[in-house]
C-alpha cells in the first residue's frame, strides 16, 4: 500500500479537522482540572474566599506550600512510607509472580493444572471485605504494620496468567533444555535465562504495580491508625474529608505549637489541600509520559492476536 492510496482513502479534510478539534478539546478537559488544582494551591486564601477558585490566581501566594512543608517531618515521613511500600511491593510482586508463573509455563511440570486452578479460583471468587479485614487484623495481627500496606493486592491472578503466557510464547523449550543439558539448576535457568528474556512483560506488570501501590489509600484507611505509617494518598484522603485533620496532623506534626499558633490565624485550608495533591501526585504526572509506551504495550500483550 502506498501513501498515495492512503491519502485518497482518508476522510475529507473537514472531518479530520473536526477530529483534531475534538481531541484538542478533550485533551484540555484532561489537563485543565489539574491546572485548576495547581492554581488554587498557589492562590492567596483570602482571594479564594472572596472570588472562588480560578484558573489564574487573582493573587499568588505560596503560603500553602510553606504551611505544608514547614514541618517537613510529616510529609517526608509520608513520602518515605509510600515510597518504601511502592518499591518493596512492586518488587515483590514482580519476583513472586515470575517465580510462580515459570513452573506453570513448563510443559513437563506435572502439577501445572492444579496450581493454575488455585489461582483461577481467586480470580473468580473473593471473600470480600469482612473476612479479609478479620484475617489481617485478628488472625495475622498486622494492623498498623507496614505489611498491612504491602500484602493486600500483592498477588494478582491476572498477572500470573499473563506472565505465564508470555513465558510459554517467548521462551523456546530448546533453550531451557540445552541449559539443563549443560547442568544448570532450575534456579539458574530462571534467573539467568528466563527473566532477562521476559523483561518486557515484567516491566509492564512492574509499572502497573508501582502505580497501583503509589495510588492506594484503601489499605491505609482500613488498617492504619498510627500517624507514622500514613501514606501520601491517605493523608490526602483524610485532609479532604476532615477539616481538622489538616490542623491536627499536618500543622502540628508534633511539637511546633508556636508555629501552629501563628499560622492558626490564617489557616489556608483549601489551598493547603490542593498543595497536598500537587505535592503527592506531581511525581507521577511528570514521570508518566516516559513510561507510557510500556503501559500501552502491556495492555495489548496477548490480547490481540497477530
Amino acid at each position: 500500500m502506498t501513501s498515495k492510496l492512503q491519502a485518497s482513502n482518508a476522510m475529507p479534510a473537514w472531518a479530520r479537522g473536526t477530529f483534531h478539534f475534538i481531541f484538542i478539546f478533550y485533551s484540555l478537559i484532561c489537563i485543565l482540572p489539574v491546572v485548576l488544582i495547581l492554581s488554587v494551591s498557589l492562590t492567596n486564601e483570602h482571594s479564594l474566599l472572596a472570588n472562588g477558585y480560578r484558573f489564574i490566581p487573582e493573587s499568588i501566594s505560596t503560603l500553602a506550600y510553606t504551611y505544608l512543608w514547614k514541618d517537613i517531618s510529616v510529609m517526608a515521613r509520608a513520602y518515605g512510607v509510600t515510597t518504601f511500600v511502592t518499591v518493596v511491593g512492586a518488587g515483590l510482586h514482580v519476583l513472586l509472580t515470575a517465580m510462580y508463573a515459570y513452573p506453570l509455563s513448563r510443559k513437563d511440570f506435572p502439577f501445572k493444572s492444579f496450581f493454575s486452578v488455585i489461582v483461577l479460583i481467586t480470580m473468580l471468587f473473593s471473600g470480600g471485605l469482612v473476612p479479609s479485614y478479620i484475617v489481617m487484623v485478628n488472625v495475622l495481627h498486622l494492623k498498623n504494620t507496614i505489611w498491612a500496606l504491602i500484602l493486600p493486592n500483592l498477588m494478582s491472578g491476572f498477572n500470573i496468567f499473563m506472565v505465564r503466557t508470555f513465558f510459554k510464547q517467548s521462551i523456546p523449550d530448546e533453550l531451557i533444555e540445552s541449559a539443563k543439558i549443560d547442568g544448570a539448576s532450575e534456579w539458574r535457568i530462571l534467573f539467568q535465562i528466563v527473566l532477562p528474556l521476559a523483561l518486557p512483560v515484567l516491566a509492564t506488570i512492574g509499572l502497573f504495580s508501582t502505580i497501583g501501590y503509589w495510588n492506594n489509600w484503601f489499605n491505609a484507611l482500613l488498617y492504619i491508625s498510627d500517624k507514622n505509617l500514613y501514606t501520601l494518598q491517605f493523608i490526602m484522603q483524610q485532609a479532604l474529608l476532615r477539616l481538622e485533620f489538616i490542623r491536627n496532623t499536618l500543622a502540628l506534626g508534633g511539637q511546633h505549637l508556636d508555629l501552629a499558633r501563628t499560622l492558626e490565624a490564617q489557616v489556608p485550608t483549601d489551598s493547603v489541600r490542593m498543595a497536598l495533591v500537587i505535592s503527592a501526585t506531581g511525581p507521577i504526572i511528570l514521570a508518566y509520559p516516559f513510561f507510557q509506551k510500556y503501559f500501552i504495550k502491556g495492555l495489548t500483550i496477548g490480547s490481540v492476536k497477530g
Partner: protein
Amino acid sequence: MLRHVIKYRALLLMMLPALTVIAVMDYLPYFGLIIAFKDINYADGILGSPWAGLRNFRFLFATTDAWRIFRNTVAFNLVFILTGLVVTVAIAVALNEIRLKYAAKLYQTIIIMPNFLSLVVVSYVVYAFLNPDYGYVNKAILGHLGIANINWYADWKYWPFILPIVNLWKGAGIGSVIYLAAIVGIDEQLFEAARIDGATRWQQIWWITIPMIAPVIVIITILSLGGIIRSDFGLFYQVPMNSAALYAVTDTVDTYVFRALFTLNDIGMSSAANFFQSVIGLFCIVGANWLVRRISRENSLF
C-alpha cells in the same frame, strides 16, 4: 506422585512464596464467609459465636438498604458499560483517522493520563469544580449565568450524571487503547477493496472497521458484565465525599459493606451483603466467561 514432587522440588519451591501469600490473603478469608451465618460477638470470637442461620440475610433484605445498594450498583455499572463502550470505541476510531501521527500520539498520551491519578486526586478535582462555596462551577460559571448556587454535595439528583462523567474522564482514554490496537490490526486490503468499489471513508468505518472489531467489543462487554455486582469503592465513596445526603444514589454494595462494618459496627448486615455479593459475583463472572468461550475461546479467562 511423590516421585514427581521430588523430581520437581526446585520448581515447587519457587512457587512457595507466592503460594503462601495467596493462601493467606485469598484462601483464608474464604473461611470468613461463614460470619454471614453467625451471630458474631467479640467475646466468643468467630468459631465460638452462635449460629444465626439466615437471620442476617433476613434483616438485610427487610430493610430498604438491600434494594437500594444492589440497584445502585447494577444500574451504575450498566450505565458505565454502555457509555464506556460508545465513547471508547469512538475515541479509537477517531484517533485512527488522524493522519498526523505525532499529534495522535500526543492526544493519546494526554487522554490516558487521568487513569493514573488516584481516585482521591480525582475527588479533589471534582471538589475543585463542585465545592458549593468556592468551586469553579458555582462561582465562575453559574455566577455569570445568574443561576443560584447549587449545593452539589447535598442534592442527589445530579450524581447519576456526575459519576458516569467522572468515570469516563478517568477511564475512557485507557479503555480505548485495546480497541485502537484491534483497529490497527485490520487487514488493509479490505479497505482498499471497499475504496475501489467506491465506498467513502465513513462507509468503510461503518461496514468494515466496526464489524471487524465487534468480537473485541463483545468480549470486553461480556467480561465487564461479569463484574456487574462489584463497584469501584473510590468512585462511590471518595468522589461524593462520603456525603450522607447522596447515599440514595451513591451507596453501592461495596460502600455499604464498608460503612456497615466501620461506621455502624453492624457485622451481621455487612457480612450478609458481603457474602451475597461474593456469591452473585461468582455466578456472574463464570457465566460471562462461559459466554465468551462460546464466541472466541482464546479470549476467555479460562
